[in-house]
């Protein structure tokens, strides 16, 4: 098993390559979902507030 991870001595280059790729892809996804949810919650709040104030003026 450890022989597999060593990859003929090149594991120190191969695994960081895969880890960096994973980290970048996961952080893009996380940032995207986080921002989207934040904005949609904000929009929801604004719409409800508006509807409360002037009786359903749809924007």
């Amino acid at each position, binding site marked *: 098993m450890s022989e597999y991870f060593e990859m003929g001595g*090149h*594991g120190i280059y*191969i695994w960081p*390559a895969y880890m960096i790729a994973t980290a970048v*892809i996961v952080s893009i996804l996380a940032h*995207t979902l986080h921002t*989207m949810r934040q904005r949609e919650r904000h*929009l929801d709040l604004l719409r409800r507030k508006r509807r409360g104030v002037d009786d359903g003026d749809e*924007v």
Partner: protein
Amino acid sequence: MPEILRAKIDGNPYILPMFRFANPNRFLRIGKGIMPWSAGLSILCIGVGLYLALFVSPPDYQQKETVRIMYVHVPSAWMALFIYSSMVISSAMALIWKHPLADLIAKASAPVGTGFTIICLATGSLWGKPMWGTWWVWDARLTSVLILFFLYLGYIALNNAFDDPARGAKASAVLALVGAVNLPIIKFSVDWWNTLHQPASVTRLDVPAVHSSMLWPLLLMAFGFTFFYVTILVLRVRSEIAAAKIRNIQLAEARG
């Protein structure tokens, strides 16, 4: 509504046309249909691709095990170019037809393209050290990809540099178009100049110079990355539409 404010809003290419001819609700509907498929296919392709890349594909006769870096390096390089190309096309559409959805697609693409360029540069460096004996050389291929990275950063910075999103979109769209000259330079850099970087093996006019045991994981990773891009694009455009609607409401409230 006061006449002067109405004129200002009518003149703003960002707010009203969005509801006049580019239908964000239609995009949201189509996006909702596409999203589960693109997300599922992305996970499937990357999953199978990783399995083939790490366990099934053979070591290269010259590069030994380091060839496994290729399965992230090459697809992310393809994505870096593909995403920039799609930004060039949508920026051109945004400038010519003033289609706000095209602006949003370009804007939503930029962070994904930046990410794949980072992956490409970092994995290339990690591959260069054992194979070339150096992390970096200032040759045409590596330098032109570094310039692509700065173009992505410049696009994002310029897009966010204005209070008025329409002006930011326009300025960054022009930058995207100017930066398009870099795309053929990247593609042909390995043919035009002497370089340590190897030339294209898959997209040759004759038969690809890659054996199927290596070609399959490569293509699966590339498809997986493409579906990932589509998924993120749908989510980010949805996010941008929400932001535009928030701005509209806040503008309307400021008007009183």
